[in-house]
Structure formats: structure tokens, C-alpha cells
């Protein structure tokens, strides 16, 4: 029973990819042939073409650019939401959520002219728009990361800073921890979460969550 459920889920996930994979090695493949009559790796040679390589490079650069902008901004936004009084915090929260509601095509249709008018480099404009659409995700990921930290942590950091201010060196902790309490000590946590997120994307999630949760339904297999 459980095996059947698993196979169905695998089928659900994999089936749409199958024709794509087959087409990628097919020379020609007209109906009603269930499988391509002949195979070739020729289409993959296009991967080495300069156009493809350039496009891949541009995409990667764009991705890196957007991540570089959206990650720290999201972190700062999350920090602000955590520290601001209730009403302004809500406002910031809603503002950072707002790009979710706006479909990218609508965003681009409207802003195109403004970018041109301000002589914004096209690449900068694209990064800006994509970063804005990515902000809801980074901000809220950092928010939940920060929420898991006890506020006591902040108090410890604060008392450490007082120690520094009053003379004695910060005991046992690198000086940078004392100088910027509440910021640096937390970043690794947030980044850790990011890394975990990245790991999820690579499929490692199954492993991690598994160790924790395998036992849920069946204790034996």
C-alpha cells in the first residue's frame, strides 16, 4: 500500500520530465511512436555553443546579482520588523509582502518607461525588479530565522557590550561580537538557514528531515 503510494508520487513528480528527456536525445519523434525511433546527443552539442554559454553566464550573473541585493536587504528588513513598534512593523511587513501580489508582467509593463527615462542600465533595472520580487521571500525567511532566537540572546550581547564600554575586554568572545551586539552574532544563524534552504533545493532535505521524522508512520520497512 505504502509502496504503491510512493510509486504514484514518484510518477507524479517524474512523468512530466520524461518526454523532455526523451526529446532531448531524439532526432525525430512523430506520433504515434511511443519512443523516439533513433537517438542522438547532437542537441547537447548546442550546450557548448557560445550563445548558450553566454546566456548561461548572463543568467548566473543575474542570479548572483539579485541574491547579493535581495539577501542583505531582506535581512535588514526582517531586523527592522522585529525591532520596530507594532504599527510601523506591520507597515514594513506589508510593504515587503506587497511585491507578492504584483505579477511580474504587470510590474515590468509599468516600470519600463521610468527606467528608460532615468537612464538606468537595463541590467541594473532587471536586477532591481527581480530583487524587489525576491524581497518578500528573503525578508520572511530571515524573519522566521530571527524568531527562533531567544530575545535573551540579545540581552547577553547587550551586557557584553556594556562590559566593553566599561573597560574590561569582552571575555572569551571575539571583539567583533561585542562591538555590534545583535547583528553579527545572528548572521550565521540566518545564513545557516539560507544554506539549509539551498540544501533543500539540492534535495538534501529529504535526508535531514528524514532522520527527524522517519518514524512518523512506519517504524519498520
Amino acid at each position: 500500500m505504502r509502496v504503491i503510494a510512493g510509486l504514484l508520487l514518484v510518477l507524479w513528480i517524474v512523468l512530466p520530465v520524461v518526454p523532455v528527456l526523451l526529446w532531448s536525445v531524439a532526432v525525430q519523434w512523430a506520433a504515434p511512436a511511443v519512443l523516439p525511433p533513433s537517438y542522438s546527443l547532437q542537441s547537447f552539442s548546442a550546450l557548448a555553443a557560445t550563445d548558450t554559454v553566454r546566456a548561461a553566464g548572463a543568467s548566473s550573473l543575474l542570479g548572483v546579482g539579485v541574491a547579493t541585493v535581495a539577501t542583505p536587504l531582506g535581512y535588514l528588513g526582517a531586523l527592522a520588523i522585529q525591532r520596530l513598534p507594532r504599527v510601523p512593523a506591520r507597515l514594513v511587513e506589508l510593504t515587503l509582502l506587497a511585491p507578492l501580489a504584483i505579477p511580474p508582467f504587470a510590474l515590468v509593463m509599468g516600470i519600463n518607461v521610468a527606467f528608460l527615462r532615468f537612464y538606468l542600465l537595463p541590467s541594473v533595472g532587471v536586477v532591481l525588479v527581480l530583487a524587489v520580487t525576491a524581497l518578500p521571500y528573503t525578508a520572511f525567511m530571515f524573519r522566521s530565522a530571527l524568531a527562533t532566537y531567544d530575545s535573551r540572546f540579545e540581552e547577553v550581547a547587550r551586557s557584553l557590550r556594556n562590559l566593553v564600554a566599561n573597560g574590561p575586554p569582552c571575555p572569551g568572545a571575539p571583539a567583533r561580537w561585542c562591538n555590534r551586539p545583535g547583528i553579527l552574532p545572528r548572521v550565521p544563524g540566518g545564513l545557516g538557514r539560507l544554506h539549509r534552504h539551498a540544501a533543500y533545493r539540492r534535495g538534501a532535505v529529504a535526508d535531514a528531515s528524514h532522520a527527524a521524522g522517519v518514524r512518523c508512520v512506519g517504524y519498520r520497512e
Partner: protein
Amino acid sequence: MSRGQGPTTTGRAVLFALPAVFPVVAVLGVSLAAAVLQSLGLMPFIGPPSFSVEAWTGNTGELVRATGLSLNIAATATVLSVCIGFLIAAYVLASPRMGWIVGALSAATIPIPHLIGAGAIGLLLSDSGFLERVLGMPAAFPALVGGPWWIAAITEYAWKESAFVALVVLGSIARSVGDLCDAAATLGATARQRVFRVVLPLAMPSLAVSALIVFVYTLGSYEPVWLLGPTSPEPLPVRAVRLFGSVDLTARPEAMASALVSVAVGAGVILIGILVVRRSREFR
């Protein structure tokens, strides 16, 4: 909680908020303002600007129909994504070996763009597509791509977004759910009961949030409905993009009106969603 302790902390917090808030407000503000102006005929390509609500009132029936269709597609896709996503998550938690495979495969589909996903679903479900060929080209093969029920488009959304839902759910409960399931088992809960009486309620908050995101995303997404839907009727994004790209320069205001309706519906859904989630948390 120690938040908002006096003006200096608040001031610093405002400073933190600015770099994130400013670009959002600027980009959204400018693009929405430009869209509103264009929809009202105040930013024409040719001729002097002249105020007109024609783009909004000229074809209200079609605008309403497009909105209804978009809402229907988004709602169906969201329900499917949430159900299947939860099943995937529950299965990953439940089965040691197979679960690992299912989880890894599911997570691997997340970086695939919707456009590619739409192409894949098209190859799979279209007339004389892969599925029909595998089934031996039956005469009764239903019109999935371009059919009246938007099945291929909705399947594409469900396929891509169920993986997203599963990822969010696993990320939020994986740490606590194992122990709680142990506790439930020793309290007499069967496997089924553990899934629906423990895992499901635990996953509820992340399911709600991901449902909201999926709904708003599918509402405003263009490629899958354009590639996999029928020629007519049109959902909002398809209508907006078609009019935006029309050779008829006077169609631009209507394109903007369609886009703005899509924005308004998305914003409305998010607001309602936030209220509902808040309310249900208070009731607990």
C-alpha cells in the same frame, strides 16, 4: 519580547527598514502609477494625453469574465498543490527509503522554471503527446491541453507548486514532527491518525501561508495558461499581455487596466489571507 525600546532603538530600526522598503516602494509606486496613468489615457504613444475611463468601462464584461476565470484556475491549482504537497511531505516523513527518493525528486523540480514546466506538461498531455502515445492513441483521449477545463495548465501549476508546498511544510515541521509522532504512536494513534491528527494540524500554518503564496502566484502567472490553455476565454494575464503586445497602439490602456485588476485581486487575496490566518491563530 524586548522591542521598541525608546527612540534610539526605533530610529536604528527605521534605518534598517529603509534599504528594503525604499526600492519596493519606488519600483511598485512608479510601475503602478505608470500603469494607472496609461490605463486612463494620460500616457499615450501618439497624440496628446486625454483622460478616459474607456479602458475600464469599455469591455467590463470581458474583464469580469477574465477575472472570474483567473480566480477559478488559481483556486483549483492551489487546492491541488496544497493537497498533493502535503501528501508528498507526509510521505517523506513516513517512509525511510522511498521517502528519501520522493523528497529528493520533488525538491529537484523546484528550480525548473514554470515556462519549462509548461513545455514539459505540454509534451506530456497534448494531443498525440507522450501520455496519449503510451496509452496507444485512444480515440477518446480527452482534450487536456487547450481543452475547456484548463486541465493541462492547472496540472502544471499543481506539479510545480506541490513541490514548493512540500518543501515549505517539511522545512517548518521536520524538526518537531518526529518526536511528536513518537508520542502519538505510544498514545495509540495509528499511522493514518498520526498523519491526519498530528502532522496535518502541525503543518496547518505553513500550509496556509504557502497556499496564499501559490494562489497569488498562479493568479498572476502568464506562461502556463498562455501555452496550455484554450484560445478563448482568456485569463487576466493572457489578456493583459496580448493587449500589451498588440499592433494596435490604442490597446495599451486596456492592457494596463487588465494588469491592474490582476494586481488588485492579488492584493485583496493577500489581505484577506492575512486576516484569516491571524484570526484563526487567535481562536486557537
